[in-house]
């Protein structure tokens, strides 16, 4: 039985359908990257796993099972228990997700309960400096703050860690460090990871499996190397082709043509159809059912036909999670908070 199982989940906001029948399975110990176009519903999916959606969101259909428990139908106390025991979250804004009025040590202690070894947990994320313990979040750099957030999320050794673009706000070196920390800790604890990101190379490198979202559905999922190296869905292929890092200088990259859909109700057919070079009539009004292509599950009417015609330039050598060099401890830069920008209007 998989640890996380999202089945035909439909989430509506006031005037948008964010998830339109998303399905996803995450097994114990597995790391799954979720990629997709901006607005495709990644964050909504991530929040739905812990039932952390904003009030405006409504679950219209489907369910989310974590360790077999239906998240959306649990009474409050059971839900809390589930979150405590099975789930951990790391969000994009590192400093914002820490309580600004509490010392880092106290926040961690709150999670660990009495008798928890705070130093040990900070040490695990390579924050050995005792000053960190007594520091307030605003006195930490972004990278340090994100590591604290990770330490808190991992403190209870959750079964599943949901990380929503946890490194987007960080610069490239720090980004690597933080990712390393997460994956190492998860590997040690046997934690599964749901990694929401748009950093395709990183996902390819670090995740076991990838789920590609489009228009509120998971249109393709499978082993990371397979999905990104040999996409089976036309969208995945287009996405993988457009990574700027992949381009040689002076070459013009082509984005996926057209605009992503903004759904207000169920999409009548394949949401990608209007932008798809291979679309045919039925794509516009018949919702595709999952098909298996190689090791991938694909939502495409023409997946079988297209099996070998889609290519991707990324040839990710699935590398071992890089051994972490003891990251140099930044002398906690107690940065003076910036003053009001001097504006001369």
């Amino acid at each position: 039985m998989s640890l996380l199982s999202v089945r035909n989940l439909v989430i509506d906001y006031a005037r948008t359908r964010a998830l339109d029948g998303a399905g996803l399975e995450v097994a114990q110990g597995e790391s799954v990257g979720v990629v997709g176009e901006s607005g495709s519903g990644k964050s909504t999916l991530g929040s739905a796993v812990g039932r952390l959606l904003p009030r405006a969101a409504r679950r219209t259909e489907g369910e989310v099972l974590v360790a077999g428990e239906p998240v959306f139908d649990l009474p409050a106390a059971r839900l809390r228990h589930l979150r405590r025991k099975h789930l951990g979250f790391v969000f994009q804004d590192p400093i914002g997700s820490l309580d600004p009025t509490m010392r880092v040590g106290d926040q961690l202690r709150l999670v660990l309960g009495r008798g928890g070894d705070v130093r040990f947990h900070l040490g695990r994320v390579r924050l050995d400096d005792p000053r960190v313990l007594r520091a307030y979040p605003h006195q930490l750099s972004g990278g340090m703050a994100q590591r604290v957030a990770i330490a808190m999320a991992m403190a209870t050794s959750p079964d599943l860690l949901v990380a929503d673009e946890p490194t987007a706000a960080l610069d490239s070196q720090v980004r690597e460090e933080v990712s390393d920390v997460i994956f190492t800790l998860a590997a040690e604890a046997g934690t599964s990871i749901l990694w929401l990101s748009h950093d395709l190379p990183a996902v390819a490198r670090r995740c076991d499996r990838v789920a590609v979202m489009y228009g509120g559905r998971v249109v393709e999922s499978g082993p990371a190397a397979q999905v990104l190296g040999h996409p089976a869905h036309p969208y995945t292929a287009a996405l993988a082709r457009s990574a700027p890092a992949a381009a040689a200088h002076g070459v013009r990259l082509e984005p996926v043509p057209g605009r992503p859909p903004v759904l207000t109700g169920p999409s009548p057919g394949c949401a990608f159809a209007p932008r798809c070079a291979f679309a045919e009539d039925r794509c516009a009004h018949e919702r595709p059912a999952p098909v298996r292509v190689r090791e991938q599950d694909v939502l495409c009417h023409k997946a079988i036909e297209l099996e070998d015609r889609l290519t991707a330039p990324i040839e990710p050598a699935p590398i071992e999670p890089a051994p972490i060099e003891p990251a140099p401890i930044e002398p906690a830069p107690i940065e003076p908070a910036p003053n009001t920008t001097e504006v001369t209007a």
Partner: protein
Amino acid sequence: MRRLDRLSIGGLACLAVLVLFALGSLVGAGGDPDAIVGPRLQPPGPGWWLGTDNLGRSVLPRVMEGVGTTLLLSSIAVLVTAVLSAAFGILAGYRGGYLNELVMRLVEVLYSFPAIVLAILVAAVLGPGQTAALASIVLVTIPLMTRLVRAAAVAVAQRDYVTSAVISGARLPRVLVRHVLPNVAGTIAVQGTYALSVGIAVEGGLSFLGFGVQPPQASLGVLIQQGGTYMIAAPWLILGPGVVLVAAILAINVVGDGLRDRLEPRETRSLT
């Protein structure tokens, strides 16, 4: 932006009824509020549907007039407060520097006067009456509001959307009106309705001490103050204006909270 919630709509409806009620007194519905129509302290009955007061006047038209007086007085006062606080608070908060210091010191000085003492001083200096009551309410409510608006404006001034507007070449008035004001509007709404309750309370307090509107004009404060004396002997004297006053302030507060929620586009999170 969300619609007002049901409670707030109820509050609005209640206010509308009260305003209609007050307008009724303008067209003479209910009778002459000053005329002595019957024996003193009569319980409700024909000719005086809410009873008569200690001068034998019918209470109903007096309550109608009182609602009008009080609502008009306190809303004008709060409007003045809101405009002044918004202007000074926003400017001081956005501009900072000496202007900020000056405004904050002035506010602190005003703040340092006990409210009712301030009101009495104003009434004594200006001579009692509506102007004094108005000025008192303004002076009593302005410090807190200016302070909070300023604090909110300081926070907004640092936001990137303000910087963006400045980069676009937007002039100061535009920045203040389009960006700072809407983002401190929630504060102004909450504080405004709070000030409205304070205003009504100050008016009542002034009447209690004899500095309020001038007789024979009725205001809720005056009516309630008089009614309080007859609470046991003639409860109808306080019941009418009391119910109306409680309804008014309650409605205002409820609407204020609703407005605040409405002006805050982000949704609060439930804790479960």
